[in-house]
């Protein structure tokens, strides 16, 4: 049995100061005077406690690309970043398009035990975009899949997308779309604009994302189903989602940390660590995505943690892989761009990075209030402990962080999953990163 934990004088949501007494996997009390004897005591003064973070969008690469990441290394990286649950994308090898594969991922996540690993299922067989995978079987499996996505690929066939949206209503499911018109992005390398023109890299036009989002919102309205937009990245995408919500369409949207900090200017120099899909956009788009987080158009922040080994990232831009890791830097980026600038409160962060993702992905027991009787899933942050990102200093098996050398203002000092410390920073006596 895990020892009880008492964290004294911690700021809940950055608002009120209380003690967190954690015993038997639950928040037992908010007063240290109730602490059982022999509890592990921690001084929480200066720290902010949030409900444990939930990542709606992670690539763990297992099965198939264990050279890039495994469920174990990815789980450790997630815990180090303050996460207690992650949603594992389906683009593995084999693809998570059967009950067998999603159960394997789910079971392996439980064995590792550092975060709750919930697999998404693929929408189409082999991410092929041609016929529906057995969504019902995945929904009824032990993995209890509720969200389906061909992430990495777009479900571009409108008729197939319509069927998927309709079909998942059977089990209150949701389709998460990687919005990218494939015909408009053949060979695309980076955002199409001033920088791509100068670098001579094939452009990825914003409209390739926006047209799919608009279409999907209209389809979701037509069949009265739910659509979730992954990693939206442009100003017009935010506008279109805002419009869909104003019509009452059941649309939700995600933004990534890299799309609220970095711009397409990063591509100058052709360092493929900045190559990602959807691509980094100009400052005006970045600012629109930030505004979408502030006004509630964007519901969740997802890392799109996408590990790749060095050899897939250190060659020519065009031959390098899309994607960047992000589990351990997401909270820092959000604090830097949104909290320290006064645009979001820690309460908002709790909503965007824990409560809303847990609700969206239907993760029971996550995103719950920091209140007595609730599961003890807690992320402890020292907002005044800056650190500089070292891409090699990560628990992930891969090092393709775009944030190397950037100072993050705050540090995740501890992560607690159902009463167990899954990460503790060296400042609190842990092994550190």
């Amino acid at each position, binding site marked *: 049995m895990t020892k009880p934990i008492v964290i004294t004088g911690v700021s809940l949501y950055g608002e009120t100061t209380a003690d967190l007494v954690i015993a038997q996997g639950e928040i037992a009390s908010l007063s240290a005077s109730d602490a059982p004897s022999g509890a592990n005591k921690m001084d929480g003064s200066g720290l902010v406690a949030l409900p444990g973070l939930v990542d709606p969008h992670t690539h763990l690469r297992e099965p198939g690309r264990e050279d890039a990441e495994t469920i174990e290394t990815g789980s450790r990286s997630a815990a180090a970043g303050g996460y207690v649950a992650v949603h594992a994308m389906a683009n593995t090898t084999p693809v998570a398009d059967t009950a067998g594969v999603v159960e394997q991922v789910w079971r392996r996540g439980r064995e590792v035990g550092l975060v709750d690993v919930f697999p998404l299922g693929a929408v189409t067989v082999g991410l092929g975009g041609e016929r529906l995978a057995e969504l019902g079987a995945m929904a009824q499996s032990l993995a209890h899949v509720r969200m389906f996505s061909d992430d990495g690929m777009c479900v571009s066939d409108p008729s197939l997308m319509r069927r998927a949206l309709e079909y998942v209503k059977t089990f209150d499911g949701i389709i998460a779309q990687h919005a990218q018109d494939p015909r408009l992005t053949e060979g695309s390398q980076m955002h*199409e604009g001033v*920088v791509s*023109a100068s*670098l*001579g*890299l094939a452009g990825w036009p914003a409209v390739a994302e926006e047209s799919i989002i608009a279409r999907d919102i209209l389809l979701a309205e037509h069949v009265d189903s739910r659509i979730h937009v992954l990693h939206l990245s442009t100003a017009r995408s935010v506008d279109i989602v805002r419009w869909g919500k104003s019509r009452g369409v059941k649309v939700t949207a995600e933004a990534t940390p890299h799309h609220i900090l970095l711009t397409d200017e990063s591509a100058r120099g052709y360092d493929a660590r900045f190559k990602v899909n959807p691509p980094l956009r100009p400052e005006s788009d970045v600012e629109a995505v930030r505004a979408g987080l502030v006004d509630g158009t964007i519901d969740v922040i997802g890392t799109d943690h996408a590990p790749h080994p060095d050899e897939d990232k250190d060659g*020519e831009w065009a031959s390098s892989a899309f994607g960047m890791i992000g589990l351990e830097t997401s909270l820092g980026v959000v604090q830097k761009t949104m909290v320290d600038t006064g645009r979001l409160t820690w309460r908002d962060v709790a909503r965007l990075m824990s409560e809303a993702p847990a609700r969206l992905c239907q993760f029971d027991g996550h995103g719950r209030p920091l209140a007595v009787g609730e599961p003890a899933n807690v992320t402890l942050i020292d907002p005044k402990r800056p650190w500089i990102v070292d891409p090699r200093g990560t628990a992930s098996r891969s090092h393709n962080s775009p944030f190397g050398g950037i100072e993050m203002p705050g540090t995740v000092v501890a992560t607690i999953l159902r009463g167990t410390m899954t990460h503790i920073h060296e400042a609190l006596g842990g092994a550190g990163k």
Partner: protein
Amino acid sequence: MKHLLSTADLSRDEALLILDTAAEMAKTQEREVRKLPTLRGKTVVNLFFEDSTRTRISFEVAAKRLSADVINFSARGSSVSKGESLKDTALTLEAMGSDGIVIRHSASGAAERLATSGWIKGSVINAGDGTHQHPTQALLDAYTIRHHLSDRTEGDAFEGLTVAIVGDVLHSRVARSNVDLLTSLGASVVLVASPTLVPIGAETWPARVVHTIDEALDSFDIDALMMLRIQLERMSGGSVAFFPSPAEYSRLLGLDAARLARLPSHAIIMHPGPMNRGLEISAEAADSPQSVIVEQVSNGVAVRMAVLYLLLAGEVES
């Protein structure tokens, strides 16, 4: 200057220094013995990931005339096709000892990656990277323009000159290199291309854009007309074509005798080669007295000698 990766990196003074040095080099090529001892003991590697016999030979001749040892390394394929990676190739060349690497690659940015990734210590000369840059081509074009039109400029470089670049600007490293170089030297640049062949973002370039060659001839006093090579696969490839047909390309953007006649008599006709005669340029235009296309080739050797000399011979005595 340590590397030559892009004409956008060249200051006006650096560009003029290269052109002046190229003129000196050209003079030496009129002597009976054309070989100079300048780079004796230096090793230049021609690292070509993409076939280009013309460019490779031009660099090879230039390096040999400066007495450098030349190694031609034709890397078949790149990491795209699961051949040896750029990094391993670079480390191999570094281990063998090379002072300068001339690289041609189908990926934009390959030369910059080679120069800045810490794999090699020597100089890198970009001999064409994807659809990004081909700086020595632009320098030889500028050299050719200067040779013919220097008496018409209003400044000490290219002020008052108008250069029109016609064709597939979107996919052209020659066009990008020339826009950057010619405008920094003071020339006005007009890009002549169908809207499908102009990159989104080019509206910020220091160049005006028109969509047909007739419009360019009507609207501008053109001193140099540079025809780009059109890649036939752009018109019929697997993806959506950028142009309906070769005939229509010729109709809107081709240079024929009638259009040639509308140019001022002092204007020169240029083409980076190899030409598609009858497509972007008719034989009459290509072979006319105003054509300087063959001269561009010989100027290429002088310009590349100048670049190799300035990058590899150490400090320049002024």
